[in-house]
């Protein structure tokens, strides 16, 4: 079964971009548009990796991360921060990687492969 990536971003354009890009590279995806929804989806879908935007309207990325790491079922899921905030590498220190928008696709897919291997 394909490895699954949860995409957390409040901008639907970016969510659909990442969805398409990961699927083209053989991964399965699911998405959430804020931190609260992301926690529900993460528990249900048990993704292999999460990409996380930091600045979202209802719940901040860092808050989601804190809640996620308190949940034994999903706390070990690797997280890649993809955000427009400068200095974002300090926001979530345990993240596998922190990359800035706009990002380099090849760099992103390399980080994903290093973290969880190929999609299939």
């Amino acid at each position, binding site marked *: 079964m394909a490895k699954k990536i949860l995409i957390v971003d409040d901008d639907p*354009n970016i969510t659909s971009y*990442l969805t398409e890009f990961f699927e083209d590279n053989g991964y399965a995806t699911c998405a959430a548009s804020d931190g609260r929804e992301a926690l529900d989806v993460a528990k249900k879908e048990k993704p292999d990796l999460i990409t996380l935007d930091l600045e979202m309207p209802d719940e901040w990325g860092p808050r989601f991360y804190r809640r996620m790491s308190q949940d034994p079922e999903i706390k070990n899921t690797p997280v890649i921060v993809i955000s427009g905030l400068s200095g974002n590498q300090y926001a979530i220190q345990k993240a596998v990687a922190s990359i800035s*928008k706009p990002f380099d696709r090849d760099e992103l897919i390399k980080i994903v492969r290093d973290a969880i291997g190929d999609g299939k």
Partner: protein
Amino acid sequence: MENDAASGSVAAVDINGTIGGIVGPLVLVEPEADLRDALEIHLTRLGLHVHKAGNGQAALSLLKEHAPSFLLANARLPDMSGIDLLRLSQAVSPNTAVIIMGDPADRKSALAALRLKATDYIHIPVESEHLEVALTRAAHWRTTRIKIQHYVEQLEALHQTKVLFQQLFDEVPCYISIQDKHFRLTGANRRFKEDFGDTIGSICYEIYKHRSEPCRDCPVMGTFEDGQPRQTEEVVTSKSGEKINVLTWTAPIHDASGHITQVMEMATDITQIRKLQSRLTSIGLLMSSISHSIKGLLTALDGAIYRLDSGLEKQDMDRVRDGADRVKEMVAQIRKMVLNVLYYTKERQLNWARINVRDFTRDVISIIGPKAEAAGVSFTHNLSSGMGAFEIDPGALRSALVNILENCIDACVDDRSGSERKHVVTLNVTDRDGFVVYQIQDNGVGMDQETREKMFTLFFSSKGSRGTGLGMFVADQIIGQHGGSIDVDSEPGSGSTFTVRLPRTLPPEIRQPADPDTGEPDQASRTEENR
């Protein structure tokens, strides 16, 4: 200070030293050589340095040369009288004490001598005791005279210093007040009086802050307590009601025994700096807000191009079309953001004209209609005919209304409550009491009170990274510039209603600068054009 003054000029006539202070040069004028020599011996023995003369002219040149402490002259001289010499000496050497020697029977000379302020008139033949007393009095006269001169000079200098300090006090570019322990003003400089009223005797917090009780953490009180100067920043209110940001500095004023009797408060007007600073802060916020949204938009644009590319690669025309649509959408969003930023960074004047309400509104409808359709929101409007014309800047007002309408569409799209209700945005245009009223209504997510109150402030966005926090701010600015108003009525979950009221004629102060025939463009707008 006092020591210096004493050693300066009083020392020259030190009366504490030799006998009765009889020191310094003396000019002796006596036509008879025997008497002259005898007197010289006697005077030299008293410690005086004697210059001798036999007549008035010789005496005058000695006076000019030596400006002596004393002049001892016979009332009868070959070329002039002793009285004439006395008169002339006062012009040549005014600080010389003059003693006239004369015939005891010559009362006329004696009286004239004393009237002309000779210090003494002694009789011939001269008795040595009499001469010593006369010299002592003369020395005393001289000391007193020089002291008085010195005091007069000091007094003048003091007066000048006082005038100078008063000028400094008044003209210094600060508000200076002096307060007692009860915050009562006991002194204030001109600038203070100009902006806060002639206020000696009134209470600091009443006049400065229009309060009825002392301020918390009053720096004046603090300085009274520990004698240390204090620096604070305050906002004070002038007598005309203007708010002034001031940087204040307090300093204690001590009495002779070292007790703090009063405190001086000096306040510098920093309103301009604060205004500039808040503008700079806004620009800083603007920059970070813009850079954040540009990053988001560029990422989304990357995504759109990726879809276009991958569609071309796979020869999937649906993907290509979808990718191209997204590229267009992103470009339109970037354009909108840039235009909003330009509007904010430029303090533009309204470029107004008299425009038909119906034509203008149709323009707005033709822009927003397709957007609503693309978002799956139905858009209806009621626009009666015969609405007449109004004075507006069509470009600016169009973007204001489009900003509000787009917000309403977004509010519908954001409604994920899953209810079956159909989302509608409605635009009603009516004439009410001479105002053109645009009522814009949606049944989207609605707003809570906090969002409603903040929605027109700069950089406030309820849309996270999709909003720049500029759209509604700019809309509010534009409508305000037209002399109009926006009212918002909203409940979370049931939608919002915006009521925009626009006067048919612009306020006079707005009309003026925009009309190139009647009004001079001001400095700012001219610079703008030159860019």
